[in-house]
């Protein structure tokens, strides 16, 4: 066989394979009814962990599609922190009907930069702790307090924030960069609440003296902790549920400070210029049903907003931490940015 023939055969084979694939798609679509093509598209913007195959997104969207005669089209941002910018870019070319995953630290900017629809959602059966965090335009769908997660087999010697900073124990902390990670930003909120009478500069000096690494994302920091590169990680209390439920490992615990802990709440919201606004609202209501809340809890490893869903599950037995009130957690974007800049100034030294 000449090389010309061989290259020719290979090219023909490539074309054949592609023709078969595209032909198969065309063939499999032939029986679909006309309705299949006129279905409404619900365009959803969310972040990767929610839409990941092991996250709650895929199964929720699939179940919703069955009942709504619609198709959920997904735009995924790599991090929750990029949702607002991705939304602005996406809106230049198309529209977005629903945004899933903004957290309370992003709401101030979300409200100032964009317009959102006000929603009326029934809140009976909700956890009381969450009610005060609900806004007219932003509906919480899950939440979890944040603290230091550690291994019981490697106990720690501090019980309050002051002892945490003054600890003589040689501990390695996996923290997150507050510029790129929401838990990282929450840690800074916690610091200003844990040491109210102390200047933030002084608190930062003490934090910088710890053996702490500021990693770019929560997943990287948790990976460090899992591979024992760190003794403690700043994470969700509900992280314990993953270890207990999936790994059957009860060796993990969280630090409990009587001063309180920050809370991360994730929201669903509908931009003002939505096209399938009713469908988007139906999805929000659907995701607040008991069965959906259970899926969110078990796949996102966060507490559901419906209080009763945790009953009889591993989430019911997780440590209950005192939570910082909304007023305590409230910090303007400007002040938070100032604190981050102070930290940047210190790490550069």
């Amino acid at each position, binding site marked *: 066989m000449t090389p010309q023939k061989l290259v020719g055969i290979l090219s023909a084979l490539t074309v054949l394979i592609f023709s078969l694939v595209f032909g198969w798609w065309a063939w499999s679509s032939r029986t679909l009814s006309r309705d299949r093509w006129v279905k409404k598209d619900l365009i959803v913007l969310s972040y*990767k962990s929610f839409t990941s195959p092991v996250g709650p997104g895929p199964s929720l969207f699939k179940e919703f599609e069955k009942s709504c005669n619609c198709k959920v089209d997904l735009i995924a941002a790599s991090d929750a922190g990029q949702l607002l910018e991705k939304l602005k870019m996406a809106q230049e070319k198309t529209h977005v009907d629903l945004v899933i995953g903004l957290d309370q630290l992003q709401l101030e900017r979300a409200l100032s930069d964009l317009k959102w629809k006000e929603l009326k959602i029934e809140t009976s059966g909700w956890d009381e702790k969450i009610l005060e965090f609900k806004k007219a335009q932003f509906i919480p769908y899950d939440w979890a307090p944040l603290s230091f997660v550690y291994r019981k087999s490697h106990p720690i010697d501090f019980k309050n924030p002051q002892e945490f900073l003054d600890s003589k124990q040689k501990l390695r902390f996996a923290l997150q960069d507050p*510029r790129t990670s929401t838990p990282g930003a929450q840690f800074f909120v916690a610091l200003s609440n844990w040491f109210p009478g102390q200047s933030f500069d002084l608190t930062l000096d003490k934090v910088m003296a710890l053996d702490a690494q500021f990693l770019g994302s929560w997943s990287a920091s948790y990976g460090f902790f899992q591979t024992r590169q760190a003794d403690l990680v700043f994470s969700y209390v509900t992280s314990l549920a993953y270890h207990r439920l999936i790994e059957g490992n009860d060796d993990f615990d969280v630090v409990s400070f009587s001063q309180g802990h920050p809370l991360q709440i994730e929201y669903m919201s509908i931009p003002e210029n939505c096209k399938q606004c009713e469908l988007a609202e139906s999805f929000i209501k659907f995701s607040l049903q008991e069965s959906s809340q259970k899926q969110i809890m078990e796949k996102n490893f966060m507490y559901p907003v419906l209080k009763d869903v945790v009953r009889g599950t591993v989430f019911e037995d997780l440590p209950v931490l005192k939570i910082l009130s909304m007023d305590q957690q409230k910090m303007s974007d400007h002040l938070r940015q100032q604190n981050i800049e102070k930290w940047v100034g210190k790490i550069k030294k």
Partner: protein
Amino acid sequence: MKIHGLRVLLVVLLLSPLFLAILSLPAPNLSHKGDLTEALFMSVYQSTMSASLSLLTGLFGALGLCSISSKRVLGWTESLMMSPIWLPSLFVILSILNLLTHLGRFPFGFWGVVIIHTSTYFGFISVVLFRAIQSKMGRQLEVALVAGASRYQALKWIVIPQLKIDLIKSFCLVFVLSLTGLSAPLLVGNGISVTLDVFAYYQLQAPGGLAVAHGIAWIEVVILTFIGLYLSRQNHPRVQQTSHVKVIGSRLMLTLSIGFSVALIATNATSFFKGLSLLQKHQEIFLLLPGALFGTFMVANLAAGVTLLLSLISIYSSPHRGLRKWILSISTPSYVLIGLALYYYGPRDEVSSILKTGVGLSIALFPGLYRWVLDTDLEGLRDQVHIARIQGANVSQIFWKILLPQMSQQVGLACALAFLWAAGDFALSGIILRGDQTLALLIESLMSAYRLELSTLLMSLLVVLSLVGAFFYTSVCYVIGRKSIS
């Protein structure tokens, strides 16, 4: 006319990401001058250190490879040493950290990033330098050592002077890879190591950040183009012979290099077995695997296929001094820019996304592959083509009878590398595709959802799949080469 048309097509294809970026992204914004200057300085300083250390350790690794006489053992050792460059960065970084923390406290920050880069690229540089030593030194090494020269003298007077250009090229390669790398500074930079890409990443979360990221990508394009222009002047054809380089081989260096690479992989063994035990609790993975495997297969084959096409066009259109110089000096922008440009341009359905990813990856990879895999050998054939032309051979005869038979193995290597990198890509695929469309993205999703062990398990599957694909392309091109000769 036909050949001119092909040359224009090649140029247009390689420039297309830049056109798309201009068309689909907001105008570049470079207003943060102070921060940008600082990030630029950090990027250049860090990349210089990473490149210098990689070169030094790579040279030792190359001496280690010189001590291997069996071709089969050499092949396996080369693959083992190169493994860190195409495994996911988080996976490699955690392995390196696990390994190095046994030796002492890991220095997070600037030096941490340099260590991660060096550990990742030293194996690849070892192989590049070893190949250069093998093909360039001729019989001089044997003669020198028979004449009584010590290994140090041979290195100082024969190896280093003749490797000068390869050393410069390797330095530039690691410099470029470090300059455009995001994972290491983001993960172990400890907030201090703010390089250009890290700064762009921070900006992507701020209002108007995409315009800033776009501006940064153009700064990188300018830097990379200068490096490319410099490199395009630093070349001379490789001598097509292999010599007995065992005489300068060092078993100690070989043991250290292999030991490090094996230890890197072995640190994940525990996670692999834990992943196996977790499989029964994650039955949904089995449902996702066919789709992810299909996606990987499509993206990697598209990338390898388009690389094959681009390689054949570039070979068919050569020798052409202007085109060669242009390809050597062109540099594709960072993956982030190509990814964003392709994502925002045109339809975003599943089929289009896969097509965009495969084609985007091959266009991003091709200039590098041409520079490092095809160019030297293609230049070595210039005289043969010249003589054939004088004797009246037409372009088609030159391609089928002279160029293709002698270049087929290099083309196969280029396609295999494109397949390997495309199959394991997170950066560009992560922007264009959804989280479960390829195996690499599925692994990344699992990593971001506590399942580190399970992702280690799937990583092994990805490695096997990648090697099978790479083997397929090298075999096909080998057969084409053999058939052309017979």
